[in-house]
């Protein structure tokens, strides 16, 4: 059975982001998010009609259902909400050093997102620790957001 992990790399397709062990097929309405990453901007959807700020990008505002497409650039500050150290990779091909930290962060703008926390060990982590977003260029040229301990 084909899984989303079987998507082939296609360097000519701007909507396929090759992160090595899998390909992210980006949604047309979410291009702004991934284009933002290339410019080292974490872009968060904001509705121009009602002012709602939400995450993750969806075709419509999740509050007033107006067409989405506008965004704000996050200041990049976040706090740690929850974390887990993964010792068994989701597929063998995951190109991350085991264990890797999967975290849920709260952005200063009030939305939550999942990411990897890099440059820290699980033992160091505390509820509400200040974090900072960073951007990492992969061998394919794709740019992914990540978080690290602030300061």
């Amino acid at each position, binding site marked *: *059975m084909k*899984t*989303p*992990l079987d998507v082939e790399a296609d360097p000519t397709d701007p909507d396929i982001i090759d*992160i090595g062990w*899998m390909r*992210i*097929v*980006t*949604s047309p309405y*979410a291009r702004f*998010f991934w284009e933002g990453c290339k410019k080292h901007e974490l872009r968060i959807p904001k509705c121009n009609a009602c002012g709602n700020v*939400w*995450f*993750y990008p969806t075709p419509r505002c*999740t509050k007033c259902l107006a067409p989405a497409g506008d965004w704000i650039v996050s200041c990049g500050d976040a706090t740690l*909400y*929850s*974390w*887990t*150290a*993964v*010792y*068994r*990779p*989701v*597929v*063998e091909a*995951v190109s*991350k050093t085991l*264990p*890797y930290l*999967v975290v*849920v962060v709260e952005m200063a703008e009030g*939305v*939550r*997102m*999942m*990411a*990897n926390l890099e440059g820290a060990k*699980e033992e160091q982590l505390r*509820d509400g620790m200040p974090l900072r977003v960073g951007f990492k260029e992969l061998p394919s040229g794709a740019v*992914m957001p990540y978080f690290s301990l602030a300061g």
Partner: protein
Amino acid sequence: MSSLRGAAAITGIGETALGHLPGSNVMDLCAESARLCIEDAGIDKDQVDGLIAFGSRVEDHTRFQALLAEHLGMPAKHYTDVTKTGGASSASAVRTAASLIATGQCDNVMIVFADNLSSGLGPDGIIPIFAAHHHLEYELPFGPLIISLYALVARRLMIEYGWTPEQVAHAAVAARQWAALNPKAALRDTPITVADVMASRPITTPLRRADCSLISDGGAALLVSRADHARGGRKKPVYLLGAGSMFSYYYIHNLPNFTDYLIDLGAESANRAKDIARLGNKDMDMAFLGDPVSWCVPANLASMGFCNIRDAAEFVASGAIAPGGSLPVNTHGGNLACAHPGTPGQTLPIIEAVRQLRGEAGARQQKKANTAMVHGQAGVLTSHCTLVLGTEDTL
């Protein structure tokens, strides 16, 4: 709503062999569970006029329920559908069946769930498929396992309510103790201690291997019938006294929080079921719940009202849910120690509840077995459906 109380009864159960079944396929497991269920109920399959299926992770089809009906030689029905509420599907299907019966649309609704995750896919096959439950842009690229989401919830329960992995390990230990009494349970011969759980390898912290459920093959079927017809049946009817549900977000991003919000969703589901049943927790002789990871046991028990969120881990650690305890929980061994064939994995607790209420549970039969609460849970505590079941005496 109160017309649901006692309107329908579970009159047949069918449970195939469970475990690793090489060469099995989904339609065969469906047919075997349906055959066993019809035999158990003692009716003619032409009397089945409703069919609810789940589909399959291994061999799914558009209109799976119609294909299944064809395989089962049951083409004529007033109602067919698939239910897609994950681990809440089994309880939800019973509630739907009873609602159809209570409103006069069907007389006998069969529920058939089967899958062969173990032999059909195996851990290396199923884990990437389950990974597709994650958001493919905003979750999966960061490498979470499906149970990493439970781990993220577990972390917040540790932070906010002081639950410890050692306390929760007692849920895995109790599941093995129950499994030892069930000849069909995969882990019947491998008792463990809390120290064993804590020494098992970390998977996605704080979850360790022994906190995680099995990956199995198996099928399970239920027949839900009009209560007035059920009384003349082959087996003692087990009545649906109440049902409730709560369904919420899909991804974790928009959950207000990972603790109270989730437990309260489950509580709203359980409270509706208890209200319709006109019964409280002290009236329940036993509890059944989805336990894809050990942490779901205290979480669901808190939702069901047997303890509060603050005391739930301590309640589990007290031995209350183990054999001989004050509240028998998952007397078949649960997903942790009996079987987890995917969605049928939460039909098995309903079947076990029926066995207990009929007095057919063998070495694990409880003396006091007139009522049971069954709580189906899915989507990392975001989808809940609760049933209250009772014998004739409870009507």
